[in-house]
């Protein structure tokens, strides 16, 4: 057996190997370690790894070089096996990840084409009205949305999303659909989803510039149940959707069944020609959408009631009026986002054949609305259709980050067809026209938390007894929003 202090080749090799394995502070040593020192350090590692040799080595034979060599090899091999085992386990173990931006997700082992994500959106509002003498409103705190979402993909073909709506008196659902993803150019969506008509209505609820939608949102259909073909073409510069639905009334979600036995067809084409060019027009998108279908029946499942920006109803048809035929909408729409600036505009026209059964009077009523909404992010982040997604300097207590601040302003009008009055709508309670403006500030504290404050004022034409105008609506809305 070599003497412990010999600096023979095996000793040097072993010293080096152990030094690497142990991450030893070699620089701190002025002389090479003795075999006994190496044995002690190896023993310490074996104890840490739980790989102490089975054969109880005496102090004497523990110092033998061949014994140390074997023990080191055993450790190396065990680490090798552990590494192989970890790789095998990783190859068959789902990945669970949780992040602020993507929420909670579980992904299958490679190829990882099964993924389930859990997301959430919570909006708590404070709503206050001023000078509401004629039509007093309740100042209130309310939970506007509580939406847990489970979405994901099940293989390369199937996608799905289920969003519950827990705000309100009873639980219901928002989105519930299944996607059959044949190709990025052609996905079939089956279930309950947003009908592809209104530009602002198609925005995610957490991304809209102001607390509530502008007036055109009152003429666009909400969510509806049906089958939709959608996709992206020409390097994603063109997106389209075409579907058949049960049919939703203006500004509302469709009912859970199809009470009038008539369907509605809706389609939308939206183009962003310079999306991939990175020039000043890259953020310009424009398109046209429309829907058509018959509606027949009396009541709110068939005829609309329009609300102001403050969510107060200002127009409805007389109770005896029935939808009696074609309901057609069309909507040119566009947005433009350039750095911190954003502009969104849309027009929508909704015509509906109606009838007053008592008199047999019939009419086609053309209602229309438009809006322009602009925003500017004071802190320099990019504005976008999805809002400010990531503040440059998230707000943190006691440090310099203040999140992102955005100023928004909106003007819009909603005009009721003159032919609606007085036969089909009561001019003493239903306004002929609404003009609304609003300003607001959005404070994105971070990617997940947003505070919103809006002031909106709506002026009405008509809608009060004796041909007078309904009093102006002045509403101050606030919102705290958490999403992931």
């Amino acid at each position, binding site marked *: 057996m070599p003497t412990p202090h010999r600096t023979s080749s095996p000793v040097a090799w072993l010293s080096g190997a152990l030094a690497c394995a142990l991450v030893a502070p070699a620089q701190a040593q002025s002389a090479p370690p003795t075999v006994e020192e190496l044995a002690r350090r190896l023993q310490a590692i074996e104890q840490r790894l739980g790989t102490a040799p089975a*054969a109880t080595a005496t102090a004497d034979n523990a110092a033998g070089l061949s014994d140390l060599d074997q023990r080191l090899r055993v450790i190396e091999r065990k680490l*090798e096996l552990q590494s192989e085992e970890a790789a095998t386990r990783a190859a068959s173990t789902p990945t669970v990840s949780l992040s602020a931006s993507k929420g909670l997700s579980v992904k299958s082992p490679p190829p990882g084409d099964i993924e389930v994500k859990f997301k959430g959106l919570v909006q708590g509002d404070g709503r206050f009205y001023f000078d509401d003498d004629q039509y007093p409103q309740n100042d209130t705190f309310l939970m506007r949305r509580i939406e847990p979402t489970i979405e994901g993909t099940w293989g390369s073909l199937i996608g799905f999303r289920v969003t519950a709506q827990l705000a309100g008196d009873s639980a219901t659902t928002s989105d519930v659909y299944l996607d059959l993803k044949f190709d990025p150019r052609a996905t079939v969506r089956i279930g309950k989803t947003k009908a592809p008509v209104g530009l602002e209505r198609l925005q995610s609820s957490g991304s809209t510039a102001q607390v509530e939608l502008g007036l055109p949102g009152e003429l666009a259909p909400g969510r509806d149940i049906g089958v939709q073909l959608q996709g992206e073409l020409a390097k994603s510069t063109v997106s389209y959707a075409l579907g058949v639905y049960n049919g939703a009334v203006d500004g509302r979600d469709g009912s859970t069944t199809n009470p009038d036995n008539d369907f509605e067809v809706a389609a939308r084409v939206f183009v962003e020609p310079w999306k991939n060019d990175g020039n000043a027009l890259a953020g310009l998108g424009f398109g046209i959408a429309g829907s058509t279908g018959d509606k027949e029946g009396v009541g709110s499942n068939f005829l609309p009631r329009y609300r102001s920006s403050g969510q107060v109803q200002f127009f409805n048809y007389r109770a005896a009026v029935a939808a009696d035929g074609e309901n057609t909408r069309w909507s040119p729409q566009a947005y433009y986002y350039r750095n911190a600036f954003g502009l969104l505009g849309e027009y929508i026209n909704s015509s509906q054949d109606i009838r007053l059964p008592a008199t047999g009077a019939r009419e086609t009523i053309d209602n229309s609305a438009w809006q322009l909404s602009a925003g500017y992010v004071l802190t320099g982040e990019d504005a976008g259709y999805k809002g400010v997604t990531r503040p440059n300097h998230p707000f943190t207590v006691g440090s310099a980050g203040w999140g992102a601040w955005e100023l928004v302003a909106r003007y819009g009008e909603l005009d009721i067809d003159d032919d609606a009055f007085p036969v089909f709508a009561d001019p003493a309670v239903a306004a002929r026209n609404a003009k609304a403006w609003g300003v607001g500030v959005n404070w994105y504290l971070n990617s997940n938390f947003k505070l919103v404050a809006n002031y909106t004022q709506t002026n009405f034409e008509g809608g009060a007894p004796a041909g007078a105008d309904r009093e102006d609506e002045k509403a101050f809305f606030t919102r705290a929003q958490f999403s992931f």
Partner: protein
Amino acid sequence: MTRTPRSTLLRSLALGFALALAGGTAAAKDVELLNVSYDPTREFYAEVNQSFAAQWKQQTGETLKIRASHGGSGKQARSVIDGLEADVVTLALAADIDAIATNGKLLPANWQTRLPHNSAPYTSTIVFLVRKGNPKQIRDWSDLVKPGVAVITPNPKTSGGARWNYLAAWAWASQEYRDGGKVVDFLTRLFKNVPVLDTGARGATTTFVERGIGDVLLAWENEALLTLSEADTRDKFEVVIPSLSIKAEPPVAWVDKNIDRHGTRKQAEAYLRYLYTPEGQRLAAKHGYRPAEPDKVPAAELARFPQVKQVTIDGAFGGWKKAQAEHFADGGFFDKIYQPK
């Protein structure tokens, strides 16, 4: 208004279905077999696959592609039960195929009666591979429990070969001590001398031969012969035949449910029957397996297999089902003998 989109949709779906069907039919022209095997058969089946595919092409004109998957026998069986679509399994022991029959319901319980010699076209035995010159003087099982002797064997929970190793040791100890407690004590001391427990036989060979760990490898005879046949290693090791070993019978079977699903029954059965032909038996001998029908192999090919006194699984342990339940099932003797560090 509502009829047009509905009928268009139906037409699209019909067209898509027809295209998918056409694509599926086109893809079905390639005939492929998957042989899920255990660790040390890599080289053997690589040659068998090539030889059989050539013969099959000559006989039928059909191009056959045979893929092979190797690993610890127990793990491989688990993979088949869990959905790995093996057309045939060629595993280290009958218990693993029994598990596929019992737990996976993929083949009948009497699978072992469908081919000659209990569906074992070749056998092997367990020998010791030691370093050249046998520095620790290992001659028999009793030498494996001496202090300072490092024994390399894989984990019987995952490796069929390891189970044969374990049972061979048990058989020797039973004969030597004739006392259950002493047998268990012997096995306990033996596994205390195992510094690295690999999951499969090939991994254990790597540990011993390539990583230089341990003094003796408990090995399949074919694995030991393979080591001695390679230029890099033949001068560094030697084989020690213990006084008693076990006749290891690695069985083969086609997996009925999978071959019926794949439409490969004809090919799978022919593939396994090929192992019993003179060429199949010759290849087995070439790769260190003892042919089940040695009369089909030239005598010169058999000279490399020394006489070994062997017990059988049926004779010494009452068959695989009993051995599996008593020794390797959770809570069995092996769990009592070996405590992971």
